[in-house]
């Protein structure tokens, strides 16, 4: 890659550093590991840069961060319990059970952090991309290589599980 190309790479992708770190941080749940994942992702991105022909650079980079993050999870073995998480089994039948308003108003930042960290990784990342990064369904689908229908159902389930986790924490404290 010539210097001009390298500059173009940096101009295109360095501005997404925080988005990359935020996603990696939520995937790995560790600052140091997230930094390693981000570095690995940028090194992969520069190798793949020849295949990038404009378009959504943030989604493009985040898809690489996500892959690097999953590789890290796989290596760290911390993934064991969440990878077998079966979406079908955890499909809650009763759709009316959203999070209880009162609980949400009482929830502290610490409660929300803990509840979000406790989510299985597939749901955590979808919710983080939607609520913290503000990505559209289509962008989340691009990042995850998923059909939009899967994005929608993961979001719905993520919110429902989050509500359950919060209410369990809420009742424990009472």
């Amino acid at each position: 890659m010539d210097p001009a190309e390298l500059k173009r790479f940096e101009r295109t992708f360095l501005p997404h550093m925080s988005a990359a770190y935020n996603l990696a941080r939520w995937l790995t749940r560790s600052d140091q590991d997230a930094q390693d994942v981000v570095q690995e992702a940028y090194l992969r991105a520069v190798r793949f840069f020849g295949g990038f022909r404009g378009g959504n650079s943030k989604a493009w980079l985040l898809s690489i961060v996500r892959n690097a993050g999953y590789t890290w999870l796989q290596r760290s073995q911390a993934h064991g319990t969440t990878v077998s998480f079966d979406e079908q089994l955890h499909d809650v039948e009763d759709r009316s059970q959203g999070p209880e308003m009162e609980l949400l108003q009482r929830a502290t930042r610490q409660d929300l952090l803990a509840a979000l960290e406790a989510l299985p990784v597939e749901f955590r990342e979808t919710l983080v991309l939607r609520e913290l990064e503000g990505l559209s369904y289509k962008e989340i689908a691009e990042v995850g290589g998923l059909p939009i229908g899967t994005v929608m159902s993961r979001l719905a389930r993520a919110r429902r599980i989050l509500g359950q986790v919060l209410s369990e924490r809420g009742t424990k404290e009472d």
Partner: protein
Amino acid sequence: MACPEKSDLIEAYADGELDLGSSLEIERHLADCKDCAAVLEGHRALRSALGTASLYHDAPAQLSSRVRAAVRKQEKVFAASPFFGWRWLAVAAPVISLVILGWSLVTVSRMPSSEDLLNQEIVSAHVRSLMAAHLTDFPSSDQHTVKPAFNGRIDFSPEVKDLASEGFALIGGRLDYLDRRPVAALIYQRRKHLINLFIYPAEDGAGERAVETSLRGYNLIRWTRAGMRYAAVSDLNLVELRSFQQALQE
């Protein structure tokens, strides 16, 4: 009780993902349906709680310079080669831009995410299995021994076929990890060539044509059949690998 009629769409509405017509329809519905109104209120409360709790992790200050240095260091290795230096490029630029223009007319910008990385992952798993005596967890040429060996180790039951009569000898099975999940690996042999056949359930059940790739000197065929994903990878030539795939399908 959830409203059976619209509850699927309430979230998409709350996320601003519906077109104008559908949004108006949902708004009319919300005026009459208490269930849906409650669901919407719940979502809004959750979103505002998540939004105001400052859960966003900003990148540490030094990360940007660290990443920049790593990228430049890696790039130096390539840039040092005279053929890839920019001087050479300046001379050849007009030719190259024509080539690139022609190329970009027939290709679209692609995410390297799922497809490319999965292919790389499959080849890496294959190479790893050849390197360190990790080829088989349970060596056996008997399909009736290999199949039960997976029981309790993975949450699905892969079909194990005996293809000896077609010239592909089964030599064992192994647990591996691909596409973010545990998968079954069956190992077949043809002459000196080993074939890894990876099997795991298809998440979305979508039909998919067989995809053939060649990567780092290995041939790779992926396909989906009856709700399962298959990937066969080997240094065997593509024609014979295709006949292996064919034999499996019969």
